[in-house]
């Protein structure tokens, strides 16, 4: 059968090259459009539905394994776990008492300083569905999407600190870029002295770097970094990372500061999405003004 057809192969020879050129150009066009503009998000949403179903099928065996493991815990394990949990509750209750006192005290101080009261942010619990398959991107997918009113730009935290930011929303799933992603930045503040800096994700495994920080900046190993809230995206005061290494080489203008994230960036299963973002009164107007004033070239034309 293949012998008889082989003559047609030579007839079709040029068409293979033509097909390659056609599909390559199509791919390159798609690459360009997708990298520069966001026109293809809708097509991606539609294609994601069947793909997601297949992906769930692929992860089914491991899920079944974990579920059956959960079902077959022994009684001693349960008893031990119960004891441990009870111990944790007592410990945490004590801590909670302290926290309430501290909150009351902080609220009092803040009202004294007439600083605007920071609101408690409403949160939404979400579960990790899958993690990014490209090892050079730090991303994961949560099981809440636009059907649960998740918006791109919302912040994802766990109980110890910031995990990342939602960058893409599908109908039932949303994509989170972790703070350790190379292209992700968080405006931070040193908790000890209030020094502001910007935390960049790094190419290396699970680290954060403080770039563009002067050599003489007052940062020490062990300092805790919290979000400064100056970008209007991250609410202030969320713990981000702890400084693990400070290299000051006078030959360079900036110090090399490496930190590890405080949150379990690649540990947890359940995460919290902050749905109500803080209101920053001044910032949005300034941004709008800047956008409008940019195209104007002649100031006298301004109203």
């Amino acid at each position, binding site marked *: *059968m*293949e012998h008889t*057809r*082989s003559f*047609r*192969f030579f007839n079709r020879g040029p068409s*293979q*090259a033509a*097909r*390659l050129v056609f*599909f*390559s150009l*199509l*791919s*390159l*066009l*798609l*690459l360009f*459009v*997708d*990298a520069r503009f966001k026109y*293809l998000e809708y*097509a*991606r949403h539609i*294609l*994601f539905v069947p*793909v997601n179903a*297949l*992906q769930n*099928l*692929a*992860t089914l065996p*491991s899920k079944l394994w974990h579920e059956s493991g959960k079902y077959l815990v022994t009684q001693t394990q349960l008893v031990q776990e119960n004891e441990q949990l009870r111990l944790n509750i007592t410990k945490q209750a004590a801590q909670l008492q302290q926290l309430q006192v501290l909150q009351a005290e902080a609220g009092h101080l803040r009202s004294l300083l007439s600083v605007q009261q920071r609101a408690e942010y409403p949160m939404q619990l979400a579960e990790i569905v*899958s*993690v*990014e*398959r*490209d*090892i*050079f991107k730090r*991303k994961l997918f949560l099981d809440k999407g636009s059907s649960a009113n998740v918006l791109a730009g919302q912040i994802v935290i766990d109980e110890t600190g910031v995990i990342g930011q939602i960058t*893409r929303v599908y109908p039932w799933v949303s*994509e989170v870029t972790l703070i350790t992603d*190379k*292209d992700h930045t968080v405006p931070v503040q040193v908790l000890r002295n209030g020094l502001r800096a910007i935390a960049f994700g790094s*190419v290396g495994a699970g680290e954060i770097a403080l770039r563009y920080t002067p050599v003489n900046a007052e940062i020490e190993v062990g300092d805790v970094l919290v979000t400064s809230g100056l970008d209007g995206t991250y609410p202030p005061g969320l713990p981000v990372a702890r400084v693990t290494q400070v290299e000051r080489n006078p030959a360079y203008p900036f110090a090399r500061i490496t930190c590890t994230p405080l949150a379990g960036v690649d540990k947890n299963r359940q995460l919290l999405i902050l749905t109500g973002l803080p209101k920053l009164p001044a910032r949005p107007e300034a941004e709008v003004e800047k956008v409008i004033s940019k195209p104007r070239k002649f100031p006298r034309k301004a109203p």
Partner: protein
Amino acid sequence: MSESAPNSREFLSASSGSFIAGSMLIALLLNWLPWQGWWLALRPDFVALVLLYWCTHKPYRVGIGMAWMVGILADVADASLFGQHALAYSVLAFGGVVLHRRVQMFDLRQQTLQVFPLFLLSQAIYAVVHWQLSGHMVWEYFISSIFSAALWAPLTLMLQSLRRPRTHSAQQ
């Protein structure tokens, strides 16, 4: 069997469209297993393997167009840019279709050496796209092409034995 006598053409049952589609589906599922960390870097590209197998053995059924569509699905699943996998698989399919007579002439060991550059080329496309986007080259992409090429012989044997009619398999 085919690996001992390279030029002997054994009779293979005409592979149905559903068999081809099924093998592609299983390859996609294997690719989408929750691989992580180093396992992900070492993971052979099953989709590329199966695609190349069909492009070299059934070049008139499976070609560049099908490779491109599978690539688009892979792009959606990986949340990578549209066209990245599609471009890589199209080039791979082109190589497979063009070289299919040469590949079929050789035995499995020589075939592996023939397909390795094709896998290397498709991985190079990922690396170049990544380089264009992020400005630095990632060499780890190339590791998986070694493992893909190493899996070529077992995969070919497996698919050939699945395509062989049942009655003949008893004699072989």
